[in-house]
């Protein structure tokens, strides 16, 4: 008996990817998750550019998480030229990062992922029956975008981030004006977490190796150490000792793997599971109430984790604003020195690593950028392999939709990993 499921374009992901799945009996015979987003060659044209250009240039890798690119880039450059940005300037970086987590996660929770659970083609379709819920999501998203726009000048590809700090820092009044919205949004995020936790989740857990950055006291945005739950504990400089990127046929994105073992998992579930003790007590209690105390290994439930991270981001934003004192200068001075720099930060969809070599004139001679989706590619493939056996009784439409949903659980940013998901399932 042979069955073929064929989807030409996996929707509601950022970019263009393809998947091919062949099933024989109850087994997956062949599976390929490929990315045919046309390559844009960032690492090549970064060569010869000035180190101060990296935040603006690399932001254009991804319109959904430009702050992540800017933050990993400034961290790497500041490491290369040996400059430290701390105090309120660092807090403002965390604040703008909170804004990006919010806009990106809320987009995913409400517009890309929730429609799957409720059986809608899109949030637009969902709005016909659940207008109030969709409006709540849009309003929550807007609060995140407002944070990014105030600190960054605009929501997409903010213009105000630079190596050393910012071009202009906000006034107390400008930040205070946001607190009412942030307080409303914090409560709305908690309601959101309770709402999504009622969805029906397939019974599916995986023994991922979770990898995330860590900070001694905080839930991580930018960090200098990288850990896993299977023993990795390295400084960012040691990245290339432990991780590698392979170029496989059928994909315009590189596949990252742990040299010694293979697949690993970055993103909200990894951050949450490795940093649960850094969450405020109220959000730890919320996680426990919603059935994911300490960790979450069911990719479909990542929507709950994202909602909790959104609540966290509103909370942190309020705390940062509360303690804000405008710094005397918008940036620390930077001058070119030859060197190598490494930077990591936590993009909404996972760890983002940058490495640069710059020469004495400040020009980039080598660039390496490892985006989260490249790191999760193997993990996505392994999820699909593991999901199918035992579920081949499902009809083609149901199986296909659940597999798409598993891919979307990663919030894959294929534009980042290079982007088009084209899902083909063939049964024989």
């Amino acid at each position, binding site marked *: 008996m042979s069955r073929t499921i064929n989807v030409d374009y996996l*929707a509601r992901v950022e970019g263009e990817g393809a998947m091919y799945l062949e099933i024989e009996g109850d087994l997956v015979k062949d599976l390929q998750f490929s990315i045919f987003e046309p390559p844009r060659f960032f690492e090549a044209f970064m060569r010869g550019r000035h180190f101060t250009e990296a935040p603006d240039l690399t932001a254009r890798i991804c319109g959904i998480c430009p702050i992540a690119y800017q933050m990993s880039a400034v961290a790497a450059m500041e490491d290369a030229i040996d400059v430290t940005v701390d105090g309120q300037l660092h807090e403002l970086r965390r604040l703008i990062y909170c804004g990006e987590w919010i806009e990106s996660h809320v987009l995913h929770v409400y517009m890309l992922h929730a429609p799957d659970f409720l059986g809608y083609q899109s949030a637009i379709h969902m*709005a016909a029956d659940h207008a109030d819920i969709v409006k709540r999501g849009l309003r929550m998203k807007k609060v995140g975008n407002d944070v990014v726009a105030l600190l960054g000048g605009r929501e997409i590809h903010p213009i105000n981030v630079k190596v050393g700090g910012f071009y202009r820092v906000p006034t107390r009044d400008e930040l205070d004006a946001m607190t009412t919205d942030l307080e409303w949004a914090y409560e709305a995020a908690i309601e959101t977490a309770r709402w999504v936790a009622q969805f029906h989740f397939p019974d599916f857990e995986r023994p991922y190796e979770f990898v995330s950055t860590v900070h001694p006291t905080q839930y991580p945005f930018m960090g200098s150490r990288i850990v896993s739950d299977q023993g990795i504990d390295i400084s960012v400089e040691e990245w290339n000792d432990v991780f590698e990127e392979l170029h496989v046929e059928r994909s315009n994105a590189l596949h990252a793997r742990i040299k010694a073992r293979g697949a690993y998992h970055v993103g909200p579930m990894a951050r949450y599971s490795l940093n649960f003790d850094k969450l405020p007590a109220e959000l730890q209690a919320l996680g426990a109430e919603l059935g994911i105390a300490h960790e979450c290994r069911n990719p479909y439930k990542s929507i709950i984790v994202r909602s909790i991270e959104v609540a966290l981001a509103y909370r942190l934003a309020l705390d940062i604003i509360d303690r804000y004192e405008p710094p005397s200068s918008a940036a620390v001075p930077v001058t070119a020195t030859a060197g190598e720099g490494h930077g990591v930060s936590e993009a909404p969809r996972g760890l983002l690593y940058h490495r640069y070599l710059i020469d004495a004139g400040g020009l980039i001679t080598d660039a390496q950028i490892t985006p989260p989706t490249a790191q999760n590619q193997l993990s996505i493939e392994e999820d699909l392999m593991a999901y199918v056996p035992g579920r081949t009784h499902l009809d083609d439409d149901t199986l296909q939709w659940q597999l798409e949903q598993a891919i979307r659980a990663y919030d894959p940013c294929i534009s980042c990993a290079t982007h088009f998901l084209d899902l083909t399932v063939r049964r024989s």
Partner: protein
Amino acid sequence: MRPKLAVLKFASCDGCQLSLLDAEDELLDIVGAIDVAYFPEASREYIDGPYDLTLIEGSVTTEHDRERLRKIRDDTAMLVSIGACATAGGVQALKNFGDVDEFVRVVYAEPDYISTLSTSTPINDHVKVDFELRGCPIDKYQLIELIAALLAGRKPNIPTYPVCVECKARGNPCVMVAHGTPCLGPITQAGCGAICPAYNRGCYGCFGPSESPNTDSLETWWQGLGVTDDEWIRTLRTFNAGAPTFVEASTRTETRR
């Protein structure tokens, strides 16, 4: 019948189409007035063409995409390219100035797996385009104005004057005069609302060249501010590197050197 909209992408970062979803206050009204027939980033639904309006983000970088674009043009009444990628080739047009084989080797271990054209080109190099919306990214209010105007059959109110006009309107002091900060505002098309100067920063040209810009006079001004030829060339070669005015100006400096 509500007009049918398609939103598609080529080589890009997805930021310009995201602008539509970022119009949080207006989104539900927009989708109430038009039928979002095909918008894969936002919906699984696929409704066949022909469409009344197709928005295209991204540049053409592969032979396959060149073919795809021709079919899209045949299937839509109006075609609008949105953003610097679609109107000028985007930041990836930097490869037009380099050796593409070398670019492939820098990024990929197995160059033979990659198929790519040697250039990144705007949509209107390949098919007729009815309107081009500038910016990296586009401004969402300009996008809403454009959709409303096209569907109403009126001329969109999208100015082609330079950013300087918006600085005056916003009350920004001129960053070149007041702080000696090099700024591309005098030769860059308005539309963003003069964001960079409002944040104490010079414009870096993300909306592309304004109508009949005087690049020579700005170059002389920048030299007076101590900007090197290399810096001038690099600034012109970013997100609108492929815009003819910026290509000419940067190449002129390069050959003079």
